[in-house]
């Protein structure tokens, strides 16, 4: 009960509360992930979390900052989880460690810690490992129940011998390769009908993971942890671009629905491009930022050499944020009248 008369002030959400809700919102997606692709992702999440907390504590200690409160704000855990979710769950354990170390030590703390990093730490970590170990980061697991866990664990521990039985191409990768192999004679519909890895929305299994992220993301929007601008612009730009090319040539370009539910689109739209630190801060800037990131992601995944472009799209747009923010400042109330007044008095 509030025992004071009005006016009331809303207590601002603490970093810990925001981060805890982001972690909570990731749970549906993770649950679908475990259901379709086995519990290996949980092992990766644990490795990433432990590395992130250790690196965060070590960097705070080196910088002479209090370790306790900063560890409790959970921001390192969010970075670790997002990074683990963008990597294939069967990468060797040291690869996850390298990626998280880069994210926390270089991308976050060398730039000044929480709130100061110009680039999304998780995406920097991902970019480092996909550039350094492209082969390992493109080995995704096929659909597998809990019985494949032993083999997956073996792969995480570094025994990569029996790996071919585990892995399968991601839907995006498979589609691109199949279209290229057909040399203009294939069509998207034929590829989708032929291979057993596609579902009604995107890739089989992956579409459910995507739906999980969508549910978590909508929860965050409903809780006002983030505004609608970034997810709406991200998904909208992706759908418009994919839709335009699909209408233009449906045989060689997949449908917008396929692109929305494949790869990292939904994770990127709700959890990565929405990073309040490295993203744009003004409302119009958020729309521009997210639309740009989605456009780049689409171009890279369809025409580029990498299997997906969400990470590079976000990083490239991070680079533009200062400029975007400068040109999209909302006008201050009364500023125009003041300027008018100033001009009159000056004369």
């Amino acid at each position, binding site marked *: 009960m509030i025992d004071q008369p009005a006016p009331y002030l809303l207590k601002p959400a603490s970093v810990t509360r925001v981060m805890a809700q982001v972690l909570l919102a990731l749970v549906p997606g993770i649950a679908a992930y475990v259901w379709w692709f086995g519990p290996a992702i949980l092992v990766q999440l644990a490795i990433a979390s432990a590395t992130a907390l250790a690196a965060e504590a070590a960097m705070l200690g080196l910088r002479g900052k209090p370790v306790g409160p900063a560890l409790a704000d959970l921001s390192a855990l969010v970075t670790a989880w997002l990074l683990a979710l963008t990597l294939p769950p069967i990468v060797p354990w*040291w690869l996850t460690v390298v990626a998280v170390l880069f994210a926390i030590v270089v991308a976050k703390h060398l730039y000044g810690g929480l709130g100061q990093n110009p680039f999304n730490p998780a995406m920097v970590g991902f970019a480092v490992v996909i*550039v*350094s*170990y492209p082969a390992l980061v493109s080995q995704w697991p096929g659909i597998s129940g809990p019985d494949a866990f032993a083999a997956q664990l073996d792969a995480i521990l570094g025994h990569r011998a029996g790996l071919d039985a585990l892995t399968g191409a991601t839907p995006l990768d498979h589609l691109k390769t199949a279209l290229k192999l057909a040399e203009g004679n294939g069509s998207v519909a034929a590829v989708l009908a032929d291979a057993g890895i596609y579902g009604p929305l995107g890739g089989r299994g992956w579409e459910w993971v995507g739906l999980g992220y969508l549910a978590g993301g909508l929860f965050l929007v409903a809780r006002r942890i983030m505004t609608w601008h970034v997810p709406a612009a991200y998904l909208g730009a992706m759908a418009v671009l994919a839709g335009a090319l699909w209408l233009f040539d449906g045989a060689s370009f997949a449908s917008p629905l396929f692109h929305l539910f494949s790869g990292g689109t939904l994770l990127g739209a709700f959890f990565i491009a929405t990073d309040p630190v490295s993203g744009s801060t003004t409302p119009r800037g958020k729309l521009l930022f997210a639309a740009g990131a989605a456009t780049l992601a689409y171009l890279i995944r369809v025409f580029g050499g990498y299997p997906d472009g969400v990470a590079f799209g976000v990083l490239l747009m991070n680079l533009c944020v200062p400029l975007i923010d400068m040109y999209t400042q909302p006008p201050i109330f009364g500023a125009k009248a003041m300027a008018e007044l100033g001009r009159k008095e000056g004369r």
Partner: protein
Amino acid sequence: MIRRDEFASIANNGLWKQNSSLVQILGMCPLLAVTTNATNGAMLSLATLLVMALSGAAVASLRHLIPHEIRIPVFILIVATLVTMVDLAFNAGLHGLYLVLGIFIPLIVTNCIVLARVEAFAAKNPPLHSALDGVFMGLGMLWTLSLLGGLRELIGAGTLLSGIELVIPGTHALRLLPEDYPGLLLASLPPGAFILLGCLIAWKNWMEARAARAKRPPLPHSPSSPAPAAAGPQG
């Protein structure tokens, strides 16, 4: 000739205080492209050292004859001549390495550090001083680029001094990390050079900050450092 303190100052400037890569941040193009291993970094630095020493001496000897208004084209002409000589010498003597370093030997002409030292030092100082300045600037570049190249190949592939057989036949690279080390390819790519250069600059700044702290220990009651209250309203 040259006084002892002048020599010390020139040496200190080149090796540490005005280090071409760590302080002046000049010559980034060869730094990015060539320091994929310690051998290449060291050999390109040696070529640059040679050019800088000779061009310093040449420009300093001619400094009273060069018209001020067209000094830059004249400097470039002198440097280009010397670079061509070094280029031909490398091609003749170390052909294998010459193929590896490729365009970056001729590109020494455009290396800012060469023109910067010629313009800032050799044009105002006697030949011996200028030649020494070139030598020590080159040595500063030598240790920085060798260290950077060594770190990059160690992190990138686990080896040290790969390509040494092109310079000294019969030798081979050291393998410092185990055979199954996966290598961080990023370190061998240009971003790795930038990130590691940043780390080296941070290390140098840290060393200097520590030295400065050691030189001036905080003595609150020392008469040489006035207390804040004594500083009064001027502060």
